[in-house]
């Protein structure tokens, strides 16, 4: 083969150049705007290198990043490892102190199911629709987990959509929350929760694993690892393991997840007309989920004297703790002595479980 034919520069296509721009934009957003930098930085770089010609990085059975993708993502290893770390970071105390708040986390999965049906109306297959719908949960690892099983060709677009919307929680959610609540509702101060004992916190991950996995076995990879991480944390006897799950292992998994997800976004897969629909539908899913959480809180208030501030319903999407922070901030804007943060963490952590269960249900039905 002549030397010049082996030069990458002569194999560049216009599509590749567009993808470089997308990759560089993600890197810019990560560095300059600090939009989900831990994920968007490696994703952006993955996009860039995967769209440089003749590298073979994503050649099946040969390429470096292909191997990381195949054994890490397709084999369902990396997203559950991220869940292990998330579990080790999660305090279920706020949820256990007011178990009724779990309903808000469940309601905020509404957008996932609504969008599942809407995407079918736009001509996506059932598997693709489920993958697009799960973006509404605002949970990156779960989106990647489900996409790898049901619609690998949409994985890159759905992952970037999920992480972008997670980063944009403080921009997307407040207008919806404001629209659906009155000033008076935003001022509701919630009654102090009871203290949760250490024993309850230790029992929860074990009991929740048994119950959830018995009901939705396909959610086991995510739920089991999430709860194992949480048991590390709450047991207080394996500090080293908790620390590793929270930091070193999570960081390693994040690096491999980011770069491989970015590398799935080759020009021929990503630059298609329906990808723009994925972003639009994903945004709709996220907005509907936010609305469902708020509206359920308002509905629950009709039947109880112990009022819930409906803002915390929006925290039922799984973006932890961004969505809880948004609820807290909006509550404080209405009444500066209203401290909603810990109340909002209840629906927030329930939302993580809810999205993982939704993924399990889709896998059971469509996998």
């Amino acid at each position, binding site marked *: 083969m002549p030397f010049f034919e082996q030069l990458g520069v002569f194999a560049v296509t216009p599509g590749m150049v567009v993808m470089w721009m997308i990759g560089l934009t993600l890197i810019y957003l990560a560095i300059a705007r600090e939009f989900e930098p831990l994920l968007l930085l490696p994703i952006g770089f993955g996009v860039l290198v995967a769209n440089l010609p003749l590298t073979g990085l994503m050649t099946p059975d040969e390429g470096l990043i292909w191997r990381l993708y195949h054994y890490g993502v397709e084999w369902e290893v990396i997203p559950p490892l991220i869940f292990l770390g998330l579990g080790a970071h999660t305090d279920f105390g706020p949820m256990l102190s007011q178990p009724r708040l779990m309903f808000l986390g469940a309601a905020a999965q509404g957008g996932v199911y609504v969008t599942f049906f809407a995407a079918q109306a736009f001509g996506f297959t059932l598997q693709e629709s489920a993958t697009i719908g799960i973006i509404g949960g605002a949970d990156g690892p779960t989106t990647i987990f489900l996409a790898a099983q049901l619609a690998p060709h949409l994985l890159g677009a759905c992952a970037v959509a999920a992480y972008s919307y997670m980063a944009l929680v403080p921009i997307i959610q407040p207008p919806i929350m404001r629209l659906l609540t009155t000033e008076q509702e935003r001022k509701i101060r919630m009654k102090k929760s009871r203290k949760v004992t250490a024993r309850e916190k230790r029992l929860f991950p074990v009991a929740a694993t048994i119950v959830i996995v018995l009901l939705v076995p396909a959610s086991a990879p995510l739920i089991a690892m999430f709860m194992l991480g949480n048991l590390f944390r709450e047991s207080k006897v394996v500090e080293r393991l908790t620390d590793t799950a929270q930091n070193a292992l999570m960081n390693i998994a994040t690096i491999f997840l980011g770069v491989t997800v970015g590398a799935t976004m080759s020009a021929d897969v990503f630059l298609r007309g329906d990808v723009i629909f994925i972003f639009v539908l994903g945004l709709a899913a996220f907005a509907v989920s936010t609305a469902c959480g708020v509206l359920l809180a308002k509905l629950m208030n009709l039947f109880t004297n112990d009022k819930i501030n409906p803002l915390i319903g929006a925290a039922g999407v799984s973006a932890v703790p961004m969505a809880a922070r948004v609820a*807290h*901030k909006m509550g404080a804007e209405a009444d500066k*002595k209203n*401290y909603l*943060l*810990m109340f909002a963490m209840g629906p927030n952590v329930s939302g993580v479980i809810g999205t993982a269960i939704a993924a399990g249900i889709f896998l059971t039905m469509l996998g």
Partner: protein
Amino acid sequence: MAEEVLAPLAGKVLSVAVKVGDTVEEDDELVVLEAMKMETVVYAPADGTVTAIQAQVGQQVEEDDPLMTLE
């Protein structure tokens, strides 16, 4: 009458805006806590004089831990 100012949520004390002997009015800023990488301000529940401060900068406090006493 003495009134204790309690931490509204668990977090790290970032700053204390008053010292013992200061006179404060209701809604004055007393303490800034950091929880979930977000700053939360604790305001004076009523007019009064600061007679004791338990909160120390850098200290981790739990919900309902006393931060200071007003009289």
